[in-house]
């Protein structure tokens, strides 16, 4: 019976990973800006998830739990890259550059998001790029909703300052979403 339960849980995780593999890759890439490193993160995340599967008490939180593992793996990779100080120039170039294989022109705001510190960038990516609810982000980042809201607001303020743009864009953004209250 226990074995059957475990098998179902493993299959459920497999389905969830398959459904979200693009999200997982994009999120990983948004941290490291390198295809091979992002693929390594996705791979390590999947292995970690299976290893820790027994610690997941509620299946309903499987997705937020999985993304949390991915973020931890991504941040750990970044820390290692920084610590090794390897290819520093390449790393910084990658952060401010576009993709390795396309000539797509990225907006200034997208670049500005990439310049935010890891914690703030995480909530901005989850909120505006992955369109997650504050509640979900709070679960993923292991904080409370109010902290997430203030981090998002701080991020938007920083982006505004970085962009040195008109005030209207930030109001426009949040008015459309009517989320930060």
């Amino acid at each position, binding site marked *: 019976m226990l074995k059957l339960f*475990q098998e179902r849980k*493993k299959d459920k*995780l*497999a389905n969830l*990973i*398959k459904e979200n*593999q*693009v999200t997982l*890759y*994009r999120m990983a*890439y*948004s941290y490291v800006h390198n*295809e091979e490193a992002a*693929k*390594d993160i*996705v*791979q*390590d995340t*999947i*292995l*970690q*998830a*299976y*290893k820790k*599967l*027994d610690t997941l008490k509620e299946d309903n939180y499987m997705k937020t739990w999985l993304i949390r593992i991915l973020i*931890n*793996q991504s*941040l*750990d*990779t970044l*820390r*290692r890259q920084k610590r*090794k100080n*390897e290819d520093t120039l390449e790393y910084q170039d990658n952060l401010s550059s576009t*993709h*390795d*294989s*396309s000539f*797509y022109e*990225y*907006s200034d*705001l*997208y670049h500005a*998001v990439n310049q935010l510190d890891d914690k703030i960038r995480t909530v901005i*990516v989850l909120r*505006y*790029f992955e369109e997650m609810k504050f509640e979900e982000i709070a679960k993923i980042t292991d904080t409370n909703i109010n902290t997430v809201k203030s981090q998002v607001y701080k991020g938007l303020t920083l982006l505004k300052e970085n*962009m040195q*743009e008109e005030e209207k*864009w930030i109001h*426009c*953004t949040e008015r*459309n979403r009517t989320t930060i209250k």
Partner: protein
Amino acid sequence: MDPLHRAKQDYNQINIPNDLDQLVDQSIRQGKAFHHKATMNKGFKLAFTACCGLILFYFPNAYASVNRNETGSGIVRSWSLSSKENSLSVSANVPFILNDENDGFSDEINREIFEIIDNRIQLVKEAALESYTLAKAKAVPEEIEEAEHDLYIDYSIKYESENTVSFVITIEDAYLSVEHFNYYTTINIQDKKDLTLMDLIQEEQLELINQEIKNQIQQREKEDENNCFFHDESEFKSIDENQSFYINENKQLVIVFERCEIAPNYMGEVEFIMPFEIPIN
């Protein structure tokens, strides 16, 4: 356009590698196998209720038609087995503990070994059948050939004395790339006991070992920038009673961590030799 909406479009433009699908499938298979191994390890120390019969009794009928050559000396002997079935080839050198006194102990250990191996064979068999069926449906000869799994099972004795034997069973599943699994076992022959790490060390040595591992991690990272260990929530904190270990030929305790346990996948399985001899007997 809302600037963040435009930035989201940029985010969605991130190129998705062509091999992502394959990478994810492979990682899921690997992950399932890891989870399976962890579950088996937890159960490894559980006592079995009944005394078991002959070693071959434990082998499934599907593998009964294989070559059986008993080899080896000392208390650990092995059966050499090979089989080929559709897209799965198995080549195995399966260890077993010699049963001179016809006691339940060696039967118990042998049954555990065979359960581990048989479970692995069944898992790979399912995966092989799945990849073979998929490839066959596509009817591309190259893909059918690539869908074949080769399973290699072997063991090596790390330490052997009159009273103690420490060995590792290695299972390799070669399919696209090679997946590698190691199972470590240390047995006290005299006491007829499958030893855990806590049987070998004193409670007060635990912190000493933890500190030694932390020092070695630090040193390895310092010595070579390619040596990386986790420094997030998966960072090494402490060994536990289910810790994998073996005893090496110098009677030193070697602590083993599985792939991805305390270091990224590319670091593979990591070992830490404790710089002291342990009183094995």
